[in-house]
């Protein structure tokens, strides 16, 4: 279903909706651009004027702390005017349709939308209905994708490990409900990662995952053997329907990342988590706070990566409009 409305006729980014449908060149350009934004935070004025005079609306139809606040900071550091709406408690709760919400916001002259929504494909839907020249960024749509999270994860991996073609990366946990995992797998594949492993209980492992060219494991200790990067996923209790798991305690016993299990990975392996983490459910506290954990670094990198993506979109869209 990838109609590639993300790219313009010159192959440049105009929306950022999913990793699927992008190419390696764009991913690398995002990572390189993000690197040049990291120096902005070292300065007296932590701002550059790239989005000056532009208005960005952050539409969160689902709760978020990290993604929303790092998007807001990224926008502010690019000098945008911003409007953040918590829509699960707003007009939509009163029955307004998504299309009407778009039309109303467009009437406010918004230049860029950042959207998180519980329905898969909602960001695509949004992008198909905005006016030309208006851009949409996906901040998580249902169980589909969370592409900016995947890019900040790729940035973190490259920061520590450089060359993807030599890496073995394991993604551990609730793959079935994880839009993060889907985006990560696409990104790791595009960046030519040597081996991507997915480790999950059979009940949380959708069958189609195998078609993405990853190795499947239902045993954590086997799966962690000699990996360079361990990405833990959050157990999404709010999305669980029916009896997929016996109990959280049982899950931790089999799939929780402990120091002992981590010792199966390479000694210099890094541990990542998109947050928010359930301590004692998918990851032991001592691992989360341990020397191999780069979890807090991921949050900081999230700002530079989001700045990079928004700048690339603005830098291209003007070219089309011929401003």
């Amino acid at each position, binding site marked *: 279903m990838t109609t590639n409305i993300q790219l313009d006729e010159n192959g440049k980014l105009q929306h950022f909706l999913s990793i699927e449908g992008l190419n390696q060149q764009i991913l690398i350009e995002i990572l*390189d651009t993000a690197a*040049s*934004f990291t*120096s902005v935070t070292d300065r007296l*004025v932590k701002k550059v004027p790239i989005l000056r005079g532009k208005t960005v609306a952050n539409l969160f139809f689902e709760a978020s702390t990290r993604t929303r606040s790092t998007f807001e900071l990224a926008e502010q550091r690019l000098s945008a005017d911003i409007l953040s709406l918590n829509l699960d408690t707003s007009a939509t709760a009163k029955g307004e349709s998504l299309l009407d919400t778009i039309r109303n916001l467009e009437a406010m002259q918004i230049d860029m939308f950042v959207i998180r929504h519980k329905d898969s494909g909602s960001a695509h839907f949004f992008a198909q209905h905005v006016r030309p020249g208006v851009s949409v960024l996906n901040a998580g749509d249902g169980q589909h994708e969370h592409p900016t999270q995947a890019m900040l994860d790729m940035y973190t991996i490259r920061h520590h490990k450089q060359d993807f073609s030599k890496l073995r990366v394991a993604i551990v946990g609730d793959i079935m409900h994880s839009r993060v995992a889907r985006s990560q797998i696409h990104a790791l594949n595009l960046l030519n990662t040597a081996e991507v492993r997915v480790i999950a209980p059979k009940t949380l492992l959708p069958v189609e995952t195998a078609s993405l060219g990853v190795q499947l494991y239902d045993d954590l200790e086997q799966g962690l053997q000699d990996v360079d990067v361990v990405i833990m996923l959050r157990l999404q209790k709010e999305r669980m329907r029916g009896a997929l798991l016996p109990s959280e305690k049982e899950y931790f016993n089999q799939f929780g990342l402990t120091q002992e299990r981590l010792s199966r990975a390479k000694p210099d392996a890094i541990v990542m988590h998109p947050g928010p983490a359930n301590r004692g459910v998918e990851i032991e506290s001592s691992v989360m706070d341990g020397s191999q954990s780069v979890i807090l670094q991921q949050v900081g990198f999230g700002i530079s990566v989001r700045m990079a993506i928004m700048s690339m979109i603005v830098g291209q869209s*003007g070219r089309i409009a011929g*401003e």
Partner: protein
Amino acid sequence: MRGIFVAIPSVESLIDKLTKALKPYFPPGLAPTDQPIIVGIETGGYWIAQAVHQALKPDTDLGRLNITFYRDDFTKIGLHPTVKPSSLPTNIDGKTIILIDDVLYSGRTIRAAMNEIFDYGRPQRIILAILIDRGEREIPIQADIVAETMRLEPDSHIKLDGPVPLQLTVKSNDH
């Protein structure tokens, strides 16, 4: 093909001129904290600044400015992620900055560079040193030190290639 023949001076001799003109800003015995900071604009200006810094050997480190994020035509030309990010060596509050670029033309690059500098702090003074001033300013910005002045056809380009060797080329655009 319309050829334009302009005598192109050697970059080395122009760098020598700049260095000599800048020397008085570094009098012997000046405390390191009082010395000006040399800052080059990516990419050509930075190469020139490197050479000047090597010749003058000040105690202050060389600074680099990548003005991409400050350009007034950013939405048209976008980013060049291959260009290295800005880095200024120290706190620039109250300092003298010697800003170096290869070619001064419309003046827009210098405007962008000064906007960026002021996001790092409030320098006491900025001195603009330019390798080649080709005139045709679009905004009221002038250099303090110019190694060479050249008049070129409006549709021609002068470009510094480098970093090794540094060489100036003039090209005219055919229409």
